[in-house]
């Protein structure tokens, strides 16, 4: 059934692996209230409780939970989304190695929106503008890269961009196949091929 032709756009759900990974990125937080008996979460501090004013990098999912209602913590944007990097991205977004910067750049960015406070609008624009800047070259390379090059081309892309890149490649290949009148050829299931390959390499 994986042969279905439609490519649903990325839309995270409760079970989305990507989303779980993205929400695990760290966000700098400051405790505004004391959290009793949770001192062990701060490897540098030795106290039993997490005192008011403790600065700690918390995963995004936790930061959001604590910042939302009772404002147990206050958050800062991770440095990738702060002024300095924003300038770099504005200067020439297409050249930035987004993967090293933040492998889940766009997705994390969206999760940060409620935490960004007054910077929210800027952050939102940054996400849109960055993708807009980079999209053309992603599309271009995904359709015009040799199989060997594809790996290096991908290495500087964030997760969302990668899925766009791969979708582009697959569509391109399917189109090629169709042009060469080979689209109707029945092939061995992808999983079966992979499975046989693995079995073969285990044997030899």
């Amino acid at each position, binding site marked *: 059934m994986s042969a279905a032709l439609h490519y649903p756009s990325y839309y995270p759900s409760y079970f989305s692996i990507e989303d779980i990974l993205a929400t695990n990125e760290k966000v700098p937080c400051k405790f505004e209230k004391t*959290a009793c008996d949770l001192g062990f979460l701060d490897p540098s501090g030795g106290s039993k409780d997490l005192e008011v004013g403790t600065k700690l990098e918390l995963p995004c999912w*936790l930061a959001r939970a604590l910042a939302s209602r009772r404002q147990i913590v206050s958050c800062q944007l991770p440095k990738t989304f702060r002024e300095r990097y924003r300038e770099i991205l504005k200067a020439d977004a297409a050249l930035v190695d987004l993967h090293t910067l933040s492998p889940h750049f766009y997705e994390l960015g969206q999760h940060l929106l409620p935490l960004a406070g007054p910077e929210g609008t800027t952050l939102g624009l940054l996400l849109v503008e960055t993708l807009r800047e980079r999209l053309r070259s992603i599309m271009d390379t995904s359709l015009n890269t040799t199989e060997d090059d594809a790996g290096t081309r991908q290495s500087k892309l964030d997760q969302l961009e990668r899925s766009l890149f791969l979708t582009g490649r697959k569509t391109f290949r399917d189109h090629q196949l169709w042009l060469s009148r080979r*689209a109707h050829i029945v092939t061995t299931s992808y999983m079966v091929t992979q499975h046989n390959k693995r079995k073969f390499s285990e044997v030899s």
Partner: protein
Amino acid sequence: MLSEKALELIKELDRSKDGKLPAFNEDIIRKVLEEMNTLFQQNQRDVGEAAAGEIRYFPSIHLRHAALDRNKRCLLAYLYNRLERIRAMRWEFGSILPADIRANLCEPETQWFNRYNKNLASYMRSLGEAGGLDLTQDTKPPKNLYVEVRCLRDYGEWEVEEGDTVVLQKDTTHYLPLAACHHLIRQGVLEQVE
């Protein structure tokens, strides 16, 4: 940090793309469940205190609860994504999985797979009035009734249509009705020649 074990499960799935299915990681699941129980008990205790008026416990309760939710999400996502892959395998390998893949399924997953098989089969049977429609066939738009195929491994005698059998021996070439040999191509026994 809390919920780190649970994340390991997710990372494990993330690493093993390409349709692979790693062995069911019961060990980590147990550890996550233990963490959850500990968090829960600590919260029970603090909730008791809080109920008695100690509002300073609220932040910790809140934090632990978030971790409990996160753990639950990771566990369910782990199960869900594994089932997704197992489901995909039904369409790729057919109703019987290769032994080494079966070995990586836990018992409830095997049961789920069987139930899925049954449900799918009865759905396909219910289509139309005359015996249903096999949806695992016809994966590509048909161009020819017959196709030339090559046999990739020794498979032995095989019935093409009623009464008509062919011996499928490695490196032999055959011209056969596509509808009949479709699933053997999907399973990697035959290869369609262009």
